[in-house]
């Protein structure tokens, strides 16, 4: 559904989108800096949650609620990606452990 937006709600949604973009940049900094790979996975999870919030605000800003469907689909895909990365971390731990101590089968 497409609806028209007033100037007040447009200003507020622009402010909200600016704050969300600043948050995404800060979380991306942790993803670049992060000392371990678990930190990077956590930062990626936070970035995907913030992108869902950004899509919700963008649907208000554009006056088009179809972007909320995009937010639902993106949340699904991001959850699957986070679970896959966590399982990858868990499995790569076992391989690294067997590589580090070959005398313990």
């Amino acid at each position: 559904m497409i609806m028209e937006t007033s100037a007040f709600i447009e200003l507020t949604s622009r402010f909200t989108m600016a704050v969300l973009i600043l948050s995404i940049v800060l979380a991306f900094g942790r993803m670049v800096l992060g000392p371990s790979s678990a930190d990077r996975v956590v930062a990626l999870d936070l970035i995907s949650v913030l992108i869902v919030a950004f899509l919700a605000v963008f649907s208000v800003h554009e006056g088009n609620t179809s972007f909320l469907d995009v937010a639902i689909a993106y949340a699904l895909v991001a959850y699957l990606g986070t679970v896959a990365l966590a399982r990858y971390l868990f499995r790569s731990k076992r391989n690294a452990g067997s590589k580090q101590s070959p005398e313990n089968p």
Partner: protein
Amino acid sequence: MMNEVIAAILMVIGSLFCLVSAVGMLRLPDTLMRMHAATKAGTLGTGLIVVAVAIFTNELGTTLKAIAVIVFLLLTAPVAAHLIGRAAYHRGIHLFEKTWIDELGGTIETTGGDPDNRQSAPKKPR
């Protein structure tokens, strides 16, 4: 007009919670503390913003979609955080040096990950 004002207030509060979670992500000293910031504050901020969208449009279909987004976030965020936390602890992350209780210390073999990134010896609670 009234629902616009309520939606604007909720959007600003939610975006500030998202900013708090991102700052905590950058500033907190430990992986598990960063996970605390990302999971709780990020989910609360996103939920407030989606509630603001539902209040602003004031329509049944959009409200149902917003409820679906919130329920999905509340279901998946703890599961994802639990999986990442378990994998990170099994890899042997470096805990914050003021951590004084570690109930899993010694019960789980943490021989993975980087050698300089290994978890310190478990401390006794005082």
